[in-house]
C-alpha cells in the first residue's frame, strides 16, 4: 500500500513538473532544446536520470546477481556511450545548428532520403531502448500494486508521452532531473542499509566478485528489524 502510494506520488510529481514546463514550449527551439536555457547542472541531472533507467538499475542488479561482477562492464559501456554521443552527435549538431539527427543528416548531405533513413534508425534504436524500460515498468508496478503486467506498461508509457507532449524539452529536463534525485536516493538508501546490516563494506566487498550470494528456493526475505546472516556458499560455481 505504501509502495503504491509512493509510485503515485512520484508520478504525480513528474506530471506536475511536465505541466509546469508547458509555459515555455511554444516554438521549435522550446520543444527541442528548451531555447538553450537549461543550465549544465540541470542537464547533467536530467541525463543522469536517463542513465539510471529501469534497464540499467534493475537490469544490472539482476545480471550481477546472475552472472557476477563482470557485469560491471555493462554500466561502463552505457557511460562510454555518452562520450561517443559527445564526439559524434552533440558537438556536430550544435555546431551545425540542427535540432535532431534527421535534420542534420538532411541538411549536411542535402538528401531527403538520408533524412528518412536517419529517422528510421533513430526510431528503431528508441524502440529497442523502450522494451526493457517498459518491461521494468510493468514488472515493478505489478509487484507493488498487484495489477496485471500490461497496466504498468500502459500507465508508464502514457505518463511519459504526456510529459513530453506537454512540456517539450523543458518539461522533460525538469522531470528527468527530479527523477534523478528520487532514483539516487532510492538506490543509495537501501544499499547503505543493506551494507550496514550485512556487516559493513570490507567484509562484503571481499566476497564480491568471488562468490555469488544465493537465495533459498522460496526467495530471500531480509527483515530490517534485527540482524540477519546471509550465507555466501564457498563453491558458488
Amino acid at each position, binding site marked *: 500500500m505504501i509502495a503504491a502510494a509512493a509510485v503515485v506520488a512520484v508520478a504525480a510529481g513528474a506530471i506536475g513538473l511536465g505541466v509546469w514546463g508547458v509555459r515555455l514550449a511554444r516554438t521549435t527551439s522550446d520543444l527541442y532544446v528548451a531555447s538553450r536555457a537549461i543550465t549544465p547542472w540541470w542537464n547533467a541531472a536530467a541525463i543522469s536520470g536517463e542513465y539510471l533507467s529501469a534497464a540499467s538499475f534493475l537490469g544490472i542488479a539482476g545480471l550481477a546477481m546472475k552472472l557476477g*561482477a563482470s557485469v*560491471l*562492464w555493462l554500466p*561502463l559501456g552505457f*557511460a*562510454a556511450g*555518452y*562520450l*561517443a554521443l*559527445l*564526439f*559524434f552527435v552533440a*558537438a*556536430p549538431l550544435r*555546431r551545425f545548428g540542427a535540432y535532431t539527427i534527421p535534420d542534420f543528416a538532411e541538411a549536411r548531405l542535402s538528401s531527403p532520403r538520408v533524412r528518412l533513413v536517419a529517422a528510421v534508425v533513430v526510431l528503431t534504436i528508441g524502440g529497442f531502448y523502450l522494451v526493457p524500460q517498459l518491461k521494468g515498468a510493468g514488472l515493478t508496478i505489478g509487484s507493488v500494486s498487484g495489477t496485471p503486467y500490461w497496466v504498468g506498461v500502459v500507465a508508464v508509457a502514457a505518463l511519459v508521452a504526456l510529459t513530453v507532449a506537454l512540456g517539450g524539452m523543458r518539461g522533460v529536463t525538469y522531470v528527468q532531473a527530479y527523477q534523478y534525485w528520487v532514483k539516487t536516493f532510492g538506490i543509495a538508501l537501501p544499499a547503505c542499509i543493506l551494507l550496514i546490516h550485512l556487516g559493513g563494506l*570490507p*567484509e562484503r*566487498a*571481499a566476497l*564480491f*566478485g*568471488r562468490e555469488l550470494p544465493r537465495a533459498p528456493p522460496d526467495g530471500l526475505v531480509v527483515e530490517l528489524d534485527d540482524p540477519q546472516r546471509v550465507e555466501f556458499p564457498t563453491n558458488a560455481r
Partner: protein
Amino acid sequence: MTEEPGPARPRTPREELAEGTPHGDVYLGRLIRAQLRLSLLALGAFGGLVGSLPLLFLLWPALQDLDLLGVPLPVLVLAAPLFPLIVVIGLLYQRRADALDETFRDVVTYE
C-alpha cells in the same frame, strides 16, 4: 550579377564563406575534418585505455588475484577510475574542439 568583374578588392574569407564559394568550402572543409580527426583521436584514446584492461588481466593473471582494500583489483578498476576517465577525456576534447572553433573564427574574421 551587376558587379564589375575583374581584380577589384580581394574578398575576405568571411565573404567567401557566406557566399559558399569553392574557396570558402575549403576553409569549412578543413574545420570539419579537423573536428572529425579530434573526435576519432579522443575515441581511440579512450578505447585504447579501457580496451587494454581485459588484455592486461589476461596476460598477467596474477593481477586478478590481487586485493586492494579488501576488494579484488579487477572489480575496483571497473568501479572506480574509469568513470572519471570518461569525464577527463570529455573535458580535454571539449577544450580542444573549442580551440579549433576559435582558430577558425580568427581566420575568417581576419581583416
